């Protein structure tokens, strides 16, 4: 091979490597940019008033997003009431009792539900439940959580080595007690992280809330009333023509993203200690 051709190949290689590095930078850049902009435009608005006050009437400046924050927490709680029992127990079925046919069908359905645009949940619950309310929104988000949690629970339960089940059977313990007290307990940490991730996902969703929660400028005193939530408030304010509302939208987005990222990072920290448990 002649020297110049070899040099050309090397140059090509460096060039491509440079391109790839650029790609990586471009992919990571949006994260940095978004966080930076959020902090820049939102941090200054995060005062005590923001967290404790209600929104002011349209056009007035000031006020806060207290009801939206509380609303979001309420909705995630309601969603959990629906999503966690069904998801965890369903995941237990898939892992411990399932037949190949049933398992295939359930997994297929779960994957479709997980992959569909979240606005579908909103419009479906709108048709099922009369009126805008926390119940309706909680139900929509709960429905969304079910297929998420069922998959992660199944995966975590299946990771528990069979040796533990055998040892428990050999002690003459009833199967349901084995599943709950031994297998579930061993998979516990993983299952909880799955639940937390699902909660983080659902907390950031706006589309299902459009048709169900509707939003509320005041405190919701009853769960059967319309309710405000952080993502919904951000959407409304962002689309409005008022600068002050734009400012608050940034602040709300910052709060939301900090919450979601904190949960995700917390989960990652939790799972680092996970493997020794299942080392066998």
């Amino acid at each position, binding site marked *: 091979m002649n020297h110049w051709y070899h040099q050309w190949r090397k140059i090509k290689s460096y060039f491509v490597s440079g391109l790839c590095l650029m790609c990586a930078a471009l992919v990571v850049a949006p994260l940095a940019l978004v966080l930076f902009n959020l902090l820049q435009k939102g941090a200054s608005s995060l005062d005590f008033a923001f967290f404790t006050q209600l929104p002011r009437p349209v056009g007035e400046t000031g006020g806060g997003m207290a009801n939206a924050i509380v609303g979001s927490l309420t909705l995630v709680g309601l969603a959990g009431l629906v999503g966690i029992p069904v998801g965890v127990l369903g995941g237990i079925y898939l892992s411990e009792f399932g037949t190949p046919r049933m398992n295939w069908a359930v997994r297929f359905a779960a994957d479709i539900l997980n992959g569909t645009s979240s606005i579908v949940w909103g419009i479906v619950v709108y048709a099922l439940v009369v009126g805008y309310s926390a119940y309706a929104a909680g139900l929509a988000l709960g429905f969304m959580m079910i297929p998420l949690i069922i998959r992660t629970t199944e995966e975590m339960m299946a990771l528990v*080595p069979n040796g533990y089940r*055998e040892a*428990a059977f050999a002690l*003459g*313990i009833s199967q349901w007690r084995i599943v709950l007290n031994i297998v579930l*307990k061993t998979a516990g940490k993983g299952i909880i992280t799955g639940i937390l991730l699902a909660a983080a996902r659902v907390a950031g969703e706006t589309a299902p809330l459009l048709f169900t929660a509707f939003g509320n400028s005041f405190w919701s005193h009853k769960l059967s009333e319309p309710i405000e939530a952080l993502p919904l408030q951000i959407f409304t304010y962002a689309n409005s023509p008022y600068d002050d509302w734009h400012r608050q939208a940034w602040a709300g987005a910052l709060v939301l993203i900090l919450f979601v990222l904190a949960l995700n990072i917390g989960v990652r920290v939790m799972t680092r200690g996970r493997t020794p*448990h299942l*080392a066998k």
Partner: protein
Amino acid sequence: MTEETQLRAVKSTPPAQTPNPASAPAAGAGSGVTFDVRQLNVWFGSNQVLHGVSLQIRPKEVTAIIGPSGCGKSTFLRSLNRMHDLVPEARVEGRITLFGQDLYAREVDATLVRRRVGMVFQKSNPFPTMTIAENVTVGLRLNGVRQKNLVQERMERSLRMAALWDEVKDRLHDNALSLSGGQQQRLCIARALAIEPEVVLMDEPASALDPLATAKIEELILRLKQDFTIVIVTHNMQQAARISDQTAFFYLGELIEFDATGRIFTNPSKKQTEDYVTGRFG
């Protein structure tokens, strides 16, 4: 009803019927024989793993099952406490009786069988989310025994029988995985003993352990046989020679010879046995 007769009723009655002391055969009825195995055949799918095995296991003795890898030793052992129920592809034919009762009769509840016939596995498997104390007592607690002092007492007794009490008495509330390999295996033995089975099956319990730990376990087996019938599968012939009273030699799914240990190792009647025992193959 005294506790003693109540226990006999729960443990010895054919489980489909409600415990009735009047009609329950006491443990040890038809004694002289713990297990009577007749023409046991086991298949996994279409693959036949055990062929027409017949033998009798005597109470309060150590019976060793030896043979080269893949000869069906573990399969045979697991037939004795119906562990194959957990494997859908397994099919068991033949007759095994435990204290005179057909183990595989339709009315028999396998869970009750496993309370009388305990098992210790090759790879020690203490439950990872539980402490030492919780591991030992799990069989009692999850089977409905509530009285705290009774559970405590049994725990100490089991740990002593497993020769582990002195080593763990000050750290009962540490996680079970903080023990060494040999200690974990003794913990599993204690766990199995806590529910007071009559038989303890051991599937190569020391094969993953160092010689010192192995010696401790062999020592404790010799003590345990005073109270329990023990059936131990081992690939270590010297171990079988050291601790067992009767030895069964399996080869390719068949029982080749079953006799007193002394005779098997010094004067076997089958050539195959002699070849294996003298190390010509295996």
